[in-house]
């Protein structure tokens, strides 16, 4: 029964009461963790969508100067794609019951993410060394802010990744690990998507 269909019900009427009684208590046939992650991703989407709106609004003002993206951003983006692919590998391996693949994929995903974050810090250092400080121009300000907010979201993700890695290290059953790996993979793919949109925006303007 869909969410909207439920809203149309009148279970206080005697003829519809038994139907409502059939209700098992869950709105969606999914684990709560998955619903929680999806709602959180909706919140993240609103956050970054607003940043895109603000960016678009700010760039039409007279003092806007296009950004000369540091080359390191391209490399970092490649590393983040690598992180996402590694986690996908872990997920596929978990689905096939291949523990070695899960271990490799999970570790590679975490390491790539760590490298990405270090790379972003290095990129900031490069910018500052070239005289592009956070207040140099609006486009540079946005690059600092967007990189920072995106990086903080990845750092939060690394906490969940760390918990999953610890569980794996302690030898937890693959069936029990599967959901955690799936949630991490979804989150990483989503943050990669957001980064590609933001990166594309910054490169194209």
């Amino acid at each position, binding site marked *: 029964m869909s969410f909207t269909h439920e*809203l149309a019900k009148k279970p206080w009427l005697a003829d519809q009461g038994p139907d409502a*009684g059939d209700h098992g208590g869950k709105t969606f046939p999914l684990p709560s963790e998955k619903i929680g992650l999806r709602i959180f991703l909706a*919140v993240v989407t609103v956050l970054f969508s607003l940043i895109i709106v*603000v960016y678009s609004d*700010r760039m039409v003002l007279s003092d806007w100067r296009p950004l000369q993206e540091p080359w390191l951003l391209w490399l970092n983006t490649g590393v983040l794609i690598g992180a996402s692919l590694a986690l996908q590998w872990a997920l596929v391996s978990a689905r096939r019951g291949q523990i070695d693949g899960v271990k490799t994929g999970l570790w590679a995903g975490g390491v790539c993410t760590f490298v990405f974050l270090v790379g972003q810090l290095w990129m900031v250092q490069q910018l500052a060394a070239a005289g592009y400080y956070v207040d140099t121009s609006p486009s540079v300000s946005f690059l*600092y*802010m967007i990189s920072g907010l995106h990086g903080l979201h990845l750092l939060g993700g690394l906490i969940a990744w760390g918990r999953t890695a610890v569980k794996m290290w302690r030898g937890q059953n693959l069936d029990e690990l599967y959901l955690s790996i799936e949630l991490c993979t979804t989150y990483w793919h989503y943050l990669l998507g957001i980064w590609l949109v933001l990166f594309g925006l910054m490169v194209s303007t």
Partner: protein
Amino acid sequence: MADVAPADPAHIPAAEVEDVELFHPQSWITRWVFCQDAKVIAIQYSFTAIAIGIVAMVLSWMMRLQLGFPETMSFFEPAAYYQFVTMHGMIMVIYLLTALFLGGFGNYMIPLMIGARDMVFPYVNMLSYWIYLGAVLILVASFFVPGGPTGAGWTLYPPQAILPGTPGAGAGIVLMLVSLSLFIIGFTMGGLNYVVTVLQARARGMSLMRMPLTIWGIFVATILALLAFPALLVSAVMMTFDGVLGTSFFMPAMISQGEMLDHDGGSPLLFQHLFWFFGHPEVYIVALPAFGIVSDLISVHARRHIFGYRMMVWAIVAIGGLSFVVWAHHMYVSGMNPYFGFFFATTTLIIAVPTALKVYNWTLTLWKANIQMTIPMLWSLAFIVTFLNGGITGLFLGNVVVDVPLSDTMFVVAHFHMVMGVAPLMVVFGAIYHWFPLITGRMLHHGMGVFHFWVTFIGAYAIFLPLHYLGFLGVPRRYFEMGETTFIPDSVQTLNAFVTVMVLIVGFAQLVFFFNLFRSASSGKVSEPNPWRACSLEWQTPDFPPGHGNFGKDLPVVYRWAYDYGVPDVEDDFVPQHIHPDKVKMKSGSGA
């Protein structure tokens, strides 16, 4: 129509909701401090919110003493007045009302009313409270830094919020922005819990359309908050960059105190759009839980099912959706494109439709009902009248041509205090009188409750009706003192003094209320289980007050909605949600 017709129990399948692995406290610290039980977290949220709310109340006394008796309050300067105004507004809206309705009532009521043992993510729920507490402490810390807290007004508009000359433009505004950011992070953790718990952890038989309206109000308000707070977070982060790192997101090129600033090209209007994209839904983040709770209070204490339940649910959802397309009615005089004004005036009038529908339905619920003049009912009736008053003045301000002359006058102050200050607080009070026995096992003192109600109700009108009149006269808001102003008669000062005296009297009534809370919690009359004879699940727990895990060994099964009051032929005039149709006690000779 009452649903008491016996239903075939075979229709009730096994529960799909897994029994959660409950967190079991091992020590006093994990039982009362770092606790993961939603009921304890609710109490922690409520105590913190009320404590910081008391600070805001005292700040309002200071402001009113200045306005009522200027020249006599020599111990604070104009800058302090602006700081009091700012902190009063921000604390009341965010740190008291939002936290109390969602963190307080949300945590206590959601698991109990939907028949769950706890929230679905208890650990994250606990973190949510501690981050909220951190946000409150950082806010309080701003009172003690050099320059004091920000005095930019609760809307924190740039550029003045971070310009030298504005009170608290140094550390004060930074601490405010950091505190708000933390609040949003903490709320997001709690909000995810509230939404997922409502969606996924309801008792068997508790379809969405059997949920009490309290839960609907909190559920939709939480969704609004989850989607609206990011706008505040973005604006807070960007303003922190502007203030601390010298960027120009919102800061235009300008000369301040004779010096050309380094900022260039930013748009203050952009901040206003972001702020109100959060700010208007915020009104409903506070109002929707109040709508839901008051619906339940009216139904229980009028012994009648809620009129038009489905319409009430749809109205909550519609108001929630529409609240995202009315934000710029706060910005008619900001210099934005006038065609925007026309659009937002139209959407503002449209949102009045579902809101009015709710008022009609509350009134029709009361029509020919068996109204019990309990204290929760008194507060509920006061809420309807007050919300109607505040809503109607909102229609004035929603129209561009009427809003322009009234902008930044005391009329606006009177309007928003009535509609999102006094009215929701009346529901908070009603809810506390209603659920106090559930939480403590004791009743609040009736005499003190009656005193509290009448002084607060009459006092609120004695305060805010005159402010509407002052607004019509053109008395501006946010002025430390009026000085020599030709268009304002001397009698305004007399009225201001009267309002201040009434504020202090209403303040005294709140002290009586707090005394009543503490006294009754320890030595009030012991309550019987379900003293209001309510149908909803929170009153049907095996232990009273509800114990750890809420429902003992087995979770309840729900057979009907939460509004079976005044049911004909039933022995006790109401049928709780969890009573099996075969076990409903009928009057002898009813033939049923």
